[in-house]
């Protein structure tokens, strides 16, 4: 009888510990939201929200500081767009190739190597963008400045190919075989089947892959911190230096910023903006991925 009781207590205690561990992840999210809101709230007490959202200059460290977030957002979006122009076509083509064309053996070799692209530390990609790609691009585009949006954008694009291709490929593989067979029976080639049957059927999964790619690119830090320059710049010209939200946070953190000053609070306002931008894309991506699972 007593043994049964101690066993019951032990089982209950273990279950509680396991449950608390699982709950810790929710606690992390809550802390992120609380910390970012609290510190940004301190920021918005000193800087009106309107100025933050519509101001065209971001110079918080100057003697006469200006707090318009637009240059950082435009820098982030510019580099993200360049990355997507590189990653989407390449990632999608690679996914179609791996899911519809590649022989099984080749796929088994290529996929793990492709995953390695995501394993390389981003600071190494930054080195590569700044000291390898930029000098090469400068030979073709003489106007290109040493720090620019183009080169880190391209490198980031190649970096996120594995994210785009693996999620798209999963979505395409989830399309049932009989749908393809129907298409082949009508005399369609693999190419026609891939583009007219498989891709439309796997559309929400592919869209999810793109969105995950966007979210990765927005949050990427070191490549831009190293190779894009450190000047907030409201421009759509990829040849000029720009600063992204993430690169700004790094730049401020590298200096010695005293706790509680307005400069200290700016990194949280920038972090909050970044968090909200990626959150929107993550939610859309999550919802789209859920839809593929329900479709068949």
């Amino acid at each position: 009888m007593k043994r049964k009781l101690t066993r019951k207590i032990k089982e209950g205690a273990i279950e509680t510990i396991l449950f608390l561990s699982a709950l810790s992840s929710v606690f992390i999210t809550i802390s992120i939201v609380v910390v970012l809101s609290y510190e940004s709230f301190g920021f918005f007490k000193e800087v009106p929200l309107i100025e933050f959202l519509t101001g065209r200059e971001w110079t918080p460290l100057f003697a006469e500081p200006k707090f318009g977030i637009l240059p950082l957002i435009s820098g982030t979006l510019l580099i993200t767009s360049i990355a997507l122009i590189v990653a989407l076509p390449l990632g999608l083509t690679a996914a179609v190739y791996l899911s519809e064309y590649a022989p099984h053996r080749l796929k088994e070799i290529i996929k793990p190597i492709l995953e390695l692209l995501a394993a390389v530390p981003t600071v190494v990609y930054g080195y590569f963008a700044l000291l390898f790609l930029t000098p090469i691009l400068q030979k073709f585009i003489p106007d290109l400045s040493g720090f620019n949006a183009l080169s880190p954008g391209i490198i980031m694009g190649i970096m996120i190919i594995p994210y785009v291709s693996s999620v798209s490929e999963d979505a395409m593989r989830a399309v049932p075989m009989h749908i393809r067979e129907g298409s082949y029976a009508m005399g369609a080639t693999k190419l026609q089947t891939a583009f007219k049957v498989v891709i439309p059927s796997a559309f929400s999964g592919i869209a999810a892959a793109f969105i995950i790619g966007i979210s990765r690119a927005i949050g990427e830090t070191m490549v831009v911190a190293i190779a894009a320059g450190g000047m907030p710049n409201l421009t759509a010209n990829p040849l000029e230096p720009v600063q992204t939200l993430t690169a700004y946070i790094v730049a401020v953190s590298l200096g010695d910023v005293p706790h509680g000053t307005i400069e200290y609070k700016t990194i949280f306002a920038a972090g909050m903006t970044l968090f909200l931008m990626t959150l929107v894309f993550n939610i859309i991506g999550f919802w789209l991925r859920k839809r593929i699972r329900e479709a068949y």
Partner: protein
Amino acid sequence: MEDIKKRIRITKFLDYIFAIVGLLSTLVGLALLFTLMTDLFMDGFPRLGYKFFASFPSRFPDEAGILSAWVGSFLVLLVTASAAIPIGVAAGIYLEEYAGKNWLTNIIEINIANLAGVPSIVYGLLALVVFVYFFKFGESILTGGLALALLILPMVIMATREAIRAIPNSIREASYALGATKWQTVQFHIIPYSTGGILTGIIIGLSRAIGETAPIITVGALTFIAFLPSSPFSSEFPFISFKWLFDPFTVMPIQMFNWVSRPQHEFQLNAAAAGIVLMMMTLLMNGFAIYIRYRFRKKIKW
């Protein structure tokens, strides 16, 4: 008739062309990886030597080394592993074996998927406020390690869940049929059978942590450190000291970042050398993870 034949020829030709284009775009990434490695090796290889690993950073590029950086990386990773592994594995076990299908489980699941997509620098901001200022751990190894633990926790949880999900239900039922409790089933069956998958996920997570720079910069790691953290062993009782946890530190990627950002070419060669070491560490860890997955897959057949 001729018309149709011509059309078939064209579509077949296009199909062939696409197979080549597809292969090429799959290879773009590999080509980049290859170029990157070659470039790093050409620049950095001559710098790699015993002295590079055994020297502190210096104003003189020829004398500078990565001693404080690799020691820092190692210690930070130790903290990360001891925090993220127990919590992550426990959370994974709970979600797969214990959790009922209810709104709370649902929230935890959505939340983990969302955490995996939060930019790494946001974890750095969280750690800055919570660990540096709230718990007053300072800009220390402990703070850095915990920041990275937050970052890889979702990866560890997801790997654990996937490994557990691969275990067929018949195993659990057999265990219950013999009168085992839930925890006994987990302890003697679920954990041993999923060890391979869990280990793979943990190693891949740690390999990401070792290359991660942004959150470590936000919690205030220094870029120039010319001393080592205090020794974990002491001559007096109890012979083990945890003072190193609160020492300032630097890590490999930050050392590399610092050298890349300098204008002098000699420092950039140092950056390349540090890059080679960093790449080798992550590639070895990833290779090891793939090997473990392969070994365990071979050993267990359901």
